[in-house]
C-alpha cells in the first residue's frame, strides 16, 4: 500500500482534494446515517456510506481506499437525495475509487474489470458490444459460465447476434477518448 496514506496529514490532504473535486465540505456531515439507511448496497459494504465520510474526515484514507464499498456503490444517488445536507457521497466515492485504482488497490476486481472492458470496447468500436463485453468479462475474471444459461434464449430470439454494431467513425471516438484522458490528467494536475 501507498506509504503516504500512513501519514495522517498526507491522508487528510488527499481526503480534502477528493472532497473538493466532489464539491463537498466534509465538515457539513451530521453523521445522521440517513445515507447508510437508504443505501441499496449497504448489506454487502464493509464501510457504511456514513462511515466513509467520517473516515475521510479523520484522515483514515487507507481504510477508505482498501474498502469494497467504494467499488460496490452503484451511483444510485439515493444517499445524496435524502441527505439533509445534500452531501455528494457518490462523488466522494467516485474520487476515492479513482485514487484507489491509481494505487493498484482494487477492492472488487470484477467491478474494475467490467468497467475497463466496457471502455476498451467503446474505444475500439465506438459503441458498446454486449456480446464482446460479456465474453471478455467472463474470460478475464475467470467466471466462465456466468450468465451462459441466458445465451440460448438471446440467440433464439435474435436479442444478440454475431454481427457488430459499430460507430462508422470509430477512429474519431478513439481520438476523442485520448484527448479526454489528456484533459482529465490536466484537470487533476490543476487541483493538486
Amino acid at each position, binding site marked *: 500500500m501507498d506509504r503516504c496514506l500512513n501519514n495522517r496529514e498526507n491522508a487528510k490532504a488527499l481526503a480534502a482534494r477528493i472532497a473538493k473535486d466532489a464539491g463537498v465540505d466534509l465538515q457539513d456531515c451530521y453523521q445522521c446515517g440517513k445515507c447508510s439507511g437508504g443505501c441499496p448496497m449497504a448489506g454487502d459494504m464493509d464501510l457504511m456510506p456514513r462511515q466513509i465520510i467520517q473516515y475521510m474526515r479523520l484522515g483514515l484514507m487507507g481504510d477508505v481506499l482498501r474498502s469494497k464499498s467504494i467499488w460496490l456503490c452503484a451511483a444510485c444517488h439515493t444517499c445524496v437525495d435524502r441527505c439533509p445536507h445534500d452531501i455528494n457521497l457518490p462523488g466522494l466515492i467516485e474520487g476515492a475509487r479513482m485514487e484507489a485504482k491509481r494505487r493498484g488497490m482494487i477492492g472488487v476486481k470484477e467491478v474494475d474489470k467490467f468497467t475497463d472492458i466496457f471502455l476498451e470496447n467503446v474505444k475500439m468500436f465506438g459503441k458498446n458490444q454486449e456480446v464482446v463485453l460479456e465474453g471478455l468479462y467472463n474470460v478475464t475474471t475467470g467466471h466462465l459460465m456466468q450468465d451462459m444459461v441466458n445465451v440460448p434464449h438471446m440467440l433464439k430470439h435474435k436479442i444478440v447476434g454475431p454481427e457488430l454494431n459499430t460507430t462508422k467513425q470509430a477512429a474519431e471516438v478513439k481520438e*476523442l477518448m485520448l484527448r479526454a484522458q489528456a484533459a482529465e490528467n490536466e484537470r487533476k494536475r490543476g487541483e493538486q
Partner: protein
Amino acid sequence: MQFSYYPGCSMDTTGITYKLSIEYICSKIGLVLHEIPDWNCCGATAAHSKNKMLALALPARNLAQAEEEGLDLDVAVPCASCYSRMKHTVVAARQDENMRRKLEEIIGMPYKAKADVLNFLEIFSRPEMKRACQEKMYRTLKGMKVACYYGCLTSRPVEVTGASSTENPMEMDEIVALTGAEPVEWDFKTECCGASHQVDAPKAARPLIERIIRNAKANKAQAIITACPLCNLNLDMREGEINKAKGTRYDLPVYQFTELLAVCMGAGAKDIGIHKHFFPAFDLLNEYLRKAGD
C-alpha cells in the same frame, strides 16, 4: 411532433422490445424521430467512474452531431442511463462556458448546448402526446394491476433531471393509466436495480432485484412496468433465476411502458417482440385483452 433521437447501444439488442414498441407507436401517432447519424456510446457508468472529462465528452459528440444536423430539435433518449449521461453534459456545458469550450476541443466539433435532452417519460407526459396516444388506442388492459418502476436515473440526481419527485414520481403511472391498466401504490418506484453490478457483483446486487419484485407483488401488482432497457433486462432476466435459486414463485412479467401503449394501439405480439421477454409476458396481456372483449 419531432425529435432528434439517440437510441443508445442496447436498443438493438437487450432493449429490442422497447425499440420495437417505440417504433410502432411512432408509426401510429406520427411521432418522427431523427436518429443522430453516427452516434457513439454515452459512456454509461463506466466512463464517469473512471474519468470525468470522458464522461462529459462522449455524450457531447452525439449532441454536437444533432446540432450539426441543423434540425433544431430536442434530443429524445429512451435509456435512463444514456439520458442521465447526456443530460449531465448539457447541464455542465450550460453552467460553465470554459467547460463547454473544453468539450468542443475534445470532440473537435462546435457544441452550443442549445438542445434539451428528454427521456421518453417526459415526452409521453406532454398533453399533446397523451391525446395523440389516446386517439389511437382501441384496445384496453382494463383492470390489470401494474407497478410502475422508475429506477434511479430518470429522477436522480434532481439537479440534473429536474424531476418532480424522487420518491414517488407519477409520470409513468399517468401514462400507463391511459391503457386502462391500474397502477398500484408501492414503495420501490425509485429503488436501484443494481445496474451493471448484476453482472460484476451479482451476489451483492441480486437482492436488489428480489426486493423490487417482492414489494410489487406484496402490493398486488400483476406486472412491473419500466422505462429503461437495463432496468427491464435486470428484472426480466433475473426473475426466473431468482425463482429457480430460491424456490420463490414470483410471476410478474416486466414490460416497457411503451409496450402497453403499443398493444392497445393494436400491436401484435410479434410486432413488438413480446415473445423475446425472458419471463413469459404473453399470457397476461392476452388475458386482459380478452377480458375486454378483444
